[in-house]
């Protein structure tokens, strides 16, 4: 089964710095998504990048996708303390419309004020 794995597992930076998280996956995908999870809370969808896209921006987020390397990165620029959360990549599995998401282990980001 396809699987996303993020690295690093944990990242601690100062407010204002940029944070980069990486995700690798195993099988072909038609899109890859990033979600955020604040401690003990639900998952919030951040951004979806399709397999024919190489880069996508949303506010302070920049996502890249390299299908040849089966990897994606999430860059958060000018980080804030409120960005402290776990970040997961997820890929859809299956061929039907109700496709389950397969999540990676996540990167725990801590932004220090």
């Amino acid at each position, binding site marked *: 089964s396809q699987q996303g794995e993020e690295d690093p597992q944990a990242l601690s930076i100062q407010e204002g710095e940029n944070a980069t998280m990486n995700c690798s996956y195993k099988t072909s995908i038609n899109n890859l*998504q990033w979600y955020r999870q604040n401690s003990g809370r639900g998952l919030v969808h951040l951004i979806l990048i399709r397999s024919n896209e190489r880069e996508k921006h949303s506010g302070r987020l920049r996502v890249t996708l390299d299908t040849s390397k089966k990897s994606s990165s999430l860059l958060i620029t000018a980080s804030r303390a409120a960005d402290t959360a776990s970040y997961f990549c997820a890929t859809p599995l299956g061929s039907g419309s109700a496709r389950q998401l397969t999540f990676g282990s996540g990167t725990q980001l801590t932004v220090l004020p």
Partner: protein
Amino acid sequence: EPEVTQTPSHQVTQMGQEVILRCVPISNHLYFYWYRQILGQKVEFLVSFYNNEISEKSEIFDDQFSVERPDGSNFTLKIRSTKLEDSAMYFCASNSLAGTDTQYFGPGTRLTVL
């Protein structure tokens, strides 16, 4: 902005008891999902549901689990006889008919089995 809601936020139960976790998906969504996350582990898929039937289920979703959409708004996950290892956060998610893979998650129910 519409959102997925879940109740209760925290459920404590004794091993062997039945629990029902409730979810209200976004109103115009037609695909519904349950996931769980054991503390410190990955989010794992349990089951997907469309057109009043299960679309897919994982190995975790054994005979102890069932899902139901009893009316036009609620989507429930029932665990018939809870085990200690069922302790986890359970997340409901939904998405629209447009076929987008973006899923909208509820805040989760923390299930503690004693």
